[in-house]
């Protein structure tokens, strides 16, 4: 069964960048996209999601708040918070919900470590 990645960002362009970067590293993985936390949660309820890539600075609930909600529903799912705001509170907030911070602007090198760990945890090849 293919791995499905939930991509959440209110910027369409940012979602395109995440999707393209993901495709370069894991071409077989499937994607679901949302532009805010509510949409992300309803996708999560409706579909099988294996890992999540969340923008931090979202309209409404931010990426950390969304990660906390997802964490309640899925204690083990790999979650990355994608942000240019790498202040200690953001990083410790990400750690509290057992997620990893990945730097924006997103690059393949930046995303690779998270995806490798996620792939290993999901029993996939690290790409």
């Amino acid at each position, binding site marked *: 069964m293919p791995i499905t990645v939930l991509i959440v960002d*209110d*910027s*369409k*362009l*940012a979602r*395109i*960048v995440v999707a*393209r970067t993901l495709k370069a590293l894991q071409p077989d993985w499937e994607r679901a996209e949302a532009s805010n936390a509510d949409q992300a949660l309803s996708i999560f309820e409706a579909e099988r999601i294996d890992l999540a890539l969340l923008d*931090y*600075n*979202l*309209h409404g609930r931010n990426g950390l708040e969304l990660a906390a909600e997802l964490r309640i529903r899925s204690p083990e799912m790999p979650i990355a918070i994608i*942000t*240019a*705001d*790498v*202040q*200690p*509170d*953001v990083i410790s907030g990400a750690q509290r919900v057992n997620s990893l911070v990945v730097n*924006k*602007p997103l690059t393949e090198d930046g995303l690779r470590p998270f995806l490798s760990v996620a792939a290993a945890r999901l029993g996939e090849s690290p790409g």
Partner: protein
Amino acid sequence: MDENIVLNELERDALTELVNIGVGRAATSLGKLVDKHILLSVPALELITLLAASRLLVESESDGLVAVRQQFTGVFSGRALLILPQSAKLDLVRAVVRENLSTAELAELERDALAETGNIILNGCLGSMANILQQPLALSLPEVIQGDGNQVLEIDGVGGDRQVLFLYINFVIQGQNIRGYIAMILDLPSIASLKQLIAAFIASVTGEDFGSSDPN
């Protein structure tokens, strides 16, 4: 004039995202400087007259403003401003200096500390935008301006009717009573070149050619 005529949806999105990244970096630097967490809003982007921009600033602040301004010139030009209500000015200086100073000592340091703080934030923001767009921007030295919205935006006489692209973000220094705005004013003549750069940026990140004629 509708801003959608000037920038299409994906271009607005790309510009907002660029500013978001820039401000995120800048907040990281400011957070280190004051050893506090900086909360940022999502950037707002409007095509309005300078006077309307000034009204936006004054609406939320009745007790006068202080701003640090840097001009930037390059393929696109404009001004970047760190704007605070007068009442937050000394608190910011105190937060940056991080020492117990008398009000007189703080007042003496005020201009310097504001200029330096503004410089860190605005350079962080403009620098990362320039890097992503791969276009150098020349930045002027920071200047501290005090007054109302019109004075901060330097509207004199008829200049207020001029349309500009106005981008602004609210910030709050957590645990301190300090809030303000980071604003960017882009002159319309440079929007055409900015539009090209954004289109190139979009093409480079998507690997596709989303020209500015793209209806989406």
